[in-house]
């Protein structure tokens, strides 16, 4: 009897959950159906399906957003930033974990403490400094992402190193490998799970970042969020076009999520809990 009751409750909860999930998705539904409408169609009503589907909004938004170019810029900047964050943070995490001295502890502490500093507190001098060095460009931006992304990444690598026995390094050194060979051939492959986490966590914020690129990049090198901002400014109140642009901008993220949802959720969980 009690079991039946519990089963029924779970069933009811599941229905509630599904309804809630649909509600959660409704903003995307509204975005997509209205992106297929004409300006007039949106005026007639925003809740239902369009009376006649039009693809014209998507074609226009795709051209206006220079989407392939913005996508290329986003992929290039995010990709290179992730590569150097993974390489340099794992090296640092390894060195700091294997050196047990007080100095090493202090350096580690500084990296962790730096996570307390909000971006807006360093933004103004940072942009001034890079401006004077003529580094307000994609290369400068990638270097900035290393600076902002390395703290959490080092923290995660440092934690993961405790699970890797020091006898592995010692064996490699005795066999005549130098420190870098030891790291690269023995340690780095073992850190692969945490590298996936680091890559995911940094991709999420770098891909979506708007403020820093808006201060650093010119419009010609705009990433997707930056281009989206200009585009939206041009087409305020022309919702049919704006919504088509937003839909296009989201598609790469949805594709990525579709293929890597388990890794993404696990990675986020790991990054937050530590």
């Amino acid at each position, binding site marked *: 009897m009690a079991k039946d009751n519990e089963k029924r409750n779970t069933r009811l909860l599941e229905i509630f959950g599904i309804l809630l999930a649909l509600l959660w998705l409704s903003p995307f539904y509204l975005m997509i159906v209205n992106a297929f409408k004409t300006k007039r169609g949106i005026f007639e009503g925003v809740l239902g399906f369009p009376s006649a589907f039009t693809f014209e909004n998507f074609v226009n938004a795709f051209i206006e957003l220079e989407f392939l170019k913005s996508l290329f810029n986003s992929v290039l900047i995010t990709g290179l930033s992730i590569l150097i964050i993974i390489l340099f943070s794992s090296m640092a995490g390894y060195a700091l974990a294997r050196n047990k001295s007080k100095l090493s502890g202090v350096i580690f502490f500084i*990296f962790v403490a730096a996570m307390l500093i909000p971006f807006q507190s360093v933004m103004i001098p940072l942009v001034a400094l890079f401006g004077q060095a003529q580094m307000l460009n994609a290369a400068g931006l990638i270097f900035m992402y*290393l*600076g902002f992304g390395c703290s959490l990444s080092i923290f995660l690598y440092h934690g993961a190193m405790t699970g890797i026995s020091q006898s592995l390094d010692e064996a490699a050194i005795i066999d005549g490998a130098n420190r870098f060979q030891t790291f690269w051939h023995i340690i780095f492959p073992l850190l692969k799970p945490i590298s996936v986490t680091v890559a995911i966590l940094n991709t999420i914020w770098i891909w979506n970042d708007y403020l820093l690129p808006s201060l650093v990049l010119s419009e010609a090198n705009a990433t997707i969020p930056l281009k989206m901002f200009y585009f939206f400014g041009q087409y305020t109140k022309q919702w049919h076009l704006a919504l088509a642009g937003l839909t296009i901008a989201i598609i790469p993220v949805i594709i990525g999520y579709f293929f890597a949802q388990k890794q993404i959720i696990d990675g986020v969980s790991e990054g937050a809990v530590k």
Partner: protein
Amino acid sequence: MKNRSLSFWLFLTPVILGLGIVVVIPFIYGFFYSFTDWNGITANNFIGFENYINLFQEDEFMNSIWFTIKFAVVTVLLLNVFGLGLALLVTRNMKTNNLMRTIFFMPNLIGGLILGFIWQFIFVSVFGDVAGITGIEGLNGWLSTTNTGFWGLVILTAWQMAGYIMIIYIAYLENVPKELIEASKIDGANAMQRFKNVIFPLVAPAFTVSMFLTLSMSFKIYDQNLSLTNGGPFNSTQMVAMEIVRTAFSDNQMAYAQSKAVIFFLIVAVIALTQVYYNKKREVDV
């Protein structure tokens, strides 16, 4: 690896340069500049606390601080209630568990800028349409007043980030031993008692993590603010982060903006440290 060894320093050089040039040096420079009349290029005069005295007398800045605090308090509460609620929901024995997790988490992957634009459409056009159909007056004119702008920002943020907080609570809930739950059922505890006496104390550490995260996230929000309300009407929904950006890059008052940025840092740091300290203490007590 020894301190003196070359390899130790070689391994650390790239990140020391990165953090040093990007965070530490600008942070220290910024602190000094906030006491000068720096204009972004040169600082001619040391003016002491003048910037700081001015900012506490500036209505726009103080308003943005109050607005941000109100926003943070409401958002932190909602996010933790939603996050824990969703986590309890999707850790039940259901077939659609994974699908629900995927859906609830999805908004986190999309940038605040894009989501803010989507919700601008919802609050303005969709709400307007629904008001026309149902006759609910309260759905008209969203984002055109301070109040609806405030709740618009809260709804957007809660919707976007609840899935993230859910993931954190799930991680802790899944660590609650099944035997404990079974034992409490046999002892006749109902769902409410089970939650209060068994599950809650075991997921207490999750509160440390998620309170800390949600509080600092809601203090630092910028993109959503920019794309949803753009600070309007009349800068009344402008949060601190946006206020600083505007003072610096629209008004070109670099040193003054930097003094606001220093205050902003102090607020965020104090909250974060208090939170960590308080929660660590409570965890031990439990």
